[in-house]
């Protein structure tokens, strides 16, 4: 059983630096000046220790588009970004709407071994929104799927959505909704507003998201099912969630926000560079500020990356032909620090809450998002809170190169990531 000694870390950024001794997969001891025999000693220089990050929303593109990302390259990016668990979305090719595909993705994750890869199962067959996929079979598979989503597509038929919420209730499943009323976003290319109008891009109106969120909150309340709202992007959605959560019988509704929706606005569209194209689209200043506030006060539960790598030819083209999505795993922490920690909206405990604890709770993981304490699983990330770093595409492990943050300076750098006591990333390098 290997032993790792982390020297000079500050759990959640508070108090004097301490040492953390990890024995096998578990935190054995925390205290000042630990002097134990260890197979590896990591000198962390006062880094903040947090539970390893959990991403509820990752696109690994395998199977089908291994030229854009694989379970292996996505896992590398995740480890470098401080993640110890990721949920791989179902919109692969073929779609992860059956036990065979989810078990394949799960097995590839185990083989790579850098991060726990939890496949998300499709809600409907082929993501078509017409017929429920075999949700129970995916749940009973070795992958033990618990989160279901047609992400990329909205489950827009209210009856299908109702049935999904009802059906998954029996085995504690979560329906993660890509909230987008398709009739209102037909042909949409950018946030509906002044910039889209000026640039001649068909608008994606905020109510297309808000109407589905409101509807699904009501359905979740009615059915007692568990609903998770993916990538909330508008001020109005935050208001609806705030209203819903203020009710006594609110039911189980959670929500995530992406790092890019916390930082970027549709002002970036001027060059028509599709690296900025994402669905839901980059919104306006008021939306960004509202989302930050909603994340700070718990209205929005967590950060999820919507890491969406694409092959070069799918982005280096005209705007309307480009696929939506941007890289997120390796830049998420820096953006959260910049938009939430530096302005005082979240402290490091809050970062642990939104990037690790709440996503683990939402997905029902019992070994992730745990306290940094003796006896707990050693799924950890160490963060240098003072480090400023420049995003360089060459340092991003994803096969895709579609990061809008390229060249941007971000605060807060991952020093090390540990999955069940084993270093998976250290000083910018993946550790096998």
């Amino acid at each position: 059983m290997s032993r790792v000694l982390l020297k000079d870390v500050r759990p959640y950024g508070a108090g004097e630096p301490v040492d953390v001794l990890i024995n096998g997969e578990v935190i054995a001891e925390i205290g000042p000046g630990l002097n134990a025999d260890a197979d590896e000693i990591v000198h962390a220089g006062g880094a903040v220790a947090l539970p390893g990050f959990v991403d509820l929303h990752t696109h690994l593109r395998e199977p089908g588009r291994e030229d854009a990302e694989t379970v292996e390259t996505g896992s590398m990016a995740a480890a470098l970004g401080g993640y110890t668990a990721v949920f791989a979305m179902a919109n692969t090719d073929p779609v992860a709407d059956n036990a065979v595909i989810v078990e394949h993705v799960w097995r590839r994750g185990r083989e790579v071994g850098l991060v726990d890869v939890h496949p998300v199962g499709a809600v409907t067959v082929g993501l078509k929104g017409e017929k429920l996929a075999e949700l129970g079979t995916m749940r009973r598979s070795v992958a033990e799927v618990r989160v279901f989503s047609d992400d990329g597509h909205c489950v827009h038929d209210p009856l299908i959505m109702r049935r999904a919420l009802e059906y998954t209730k029996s085995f504690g499943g979560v329906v993660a909704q890509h909230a987008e009323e398709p009739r209102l976003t037909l042909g949409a290319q950018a946030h509906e507003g002044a910039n889209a109008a000026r640039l001649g891009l068909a608008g994606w109106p905020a109510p297309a998201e808000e109407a589905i969120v409101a509807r699904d909150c009501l359905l979740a309340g009615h059915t007692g099912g568990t609903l998770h709202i993916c990538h909330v992007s508008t001020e109005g959605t935050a208001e609806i969630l705030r209203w819903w959560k203020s009710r006594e019988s609110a039911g189980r509704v959670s929500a995530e926000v992406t790092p890019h929706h916390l930082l970027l606005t549709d002002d970036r569209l001027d060059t028509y560079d599709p690296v900025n194209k994402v669905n839901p689209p980059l919104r306006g200043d008021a939306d960004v500020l509202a989302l930050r506030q909603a994340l700070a006060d718990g209205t929005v539960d967590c950060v999820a990356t919507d890491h969406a790598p694409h092959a070069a030819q799918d982005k280096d083209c005209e705007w309307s032909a480009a696929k939506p999505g941007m890289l997120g795993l390796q830049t998420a922490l820096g953006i959260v620090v910049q938009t939430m920690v530096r302005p005082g909206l979240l402290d490091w405990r809050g970062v642990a809450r939104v990037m690790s604890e709440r996503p683990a709770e939402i997905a029902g993981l019992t070994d992730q998002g745990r306290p940094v304490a003796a006896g707990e699983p050693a799924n950890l990330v160490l963060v240098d809170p003072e480090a400023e770093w420049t995003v360089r595409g060459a340092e991003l492990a994803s096969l895709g190169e579609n990061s809008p943050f390229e060249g941007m300076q971000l605060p807060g750098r991952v020093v090390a990531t540990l999955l069940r006591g084993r270093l998976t990333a250290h000083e910018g390098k993946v550790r096998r």
Partner: protein
Amino acid sequence: MRHLLSTEDLDVATATSLLDTADTLKQTLLGREVKKLPTLRGRTVVTLFYENSTRTRVSFEVAGKWMSADVINVSASSSSVGKGESLRDTALTLAAAGADCVIIRHPASGSAHRLAGWLDEAGTQVINAGDGMHEHPTQALLDAATLRERLGELAGRRIAIVGDLLHSRVARSNVHLLRTLGAEVVLVAPPTLVPAGAQHWGAEVRHELDPELPKLDAVMMLRVQAERMHGGFFPSAREYSIAYGLNEARLGMLPEHAVVLHPGPMLRGMEIAPAVADSPRAAITQQVSNGVHVRMAVLYHLLAGEEITA
């Protein structure tokens, strides 16, 4: 001027210079039996059209040929584009083959900007001949040239743009250019055909045409772009025509000097009554004619890079 992608990029001096050059070229060629200037001899101009077009494409081709450029037409349906070649690869092929200038018409907004980005290094210049719902700058320039001929200077003139603003690249280009030249612009359309955010364009937005007519110096009718519509923008062609069609009664409500423009192709009977389209108040064929001279001027500015004098 490196490329011509948008009228938003044109300052008043550049816009005026282009219009003056077009006017000079027009006067120079007036009455000539052989309409040929040697100015762009040896330069290669490619028209790359991903959408059907007659007037714009022919206009550019004639403009290039009258300037003695070698003009090569590439259409999406009869080129490697039809085999699935990307716009980027097509662009790089054209640059490698020696194109000095690529004139692009494309259904995607921003495609001309993307093309310019890919071709910058090669030194190939790009003219936007209409990109999706974004802009059609040479159309706006030819409209301005036509209005100048009919009305004189545009500063202080009040011009209405009427119809399908939502899908109209012509409207976007015209709003920028007319405002740059000092005109007041009023946009008139049903609310469903006004883009959210158009109130930031610096033009007034109105939904009723009749009260505007007596105040106008010019009215630009737009084509209702059924091919871009996914349904339900207005109840029926008849209702649209009743509310926004430019018929003879409405023509009578305009001041005597006011001019009628339409970028074509026209939906006669719906957007504009045949008698109005064919009336002396309409400058529609004059627009087409001026299109050649304006495009000559643009090619001249981009490829010859100097002022032309009479």
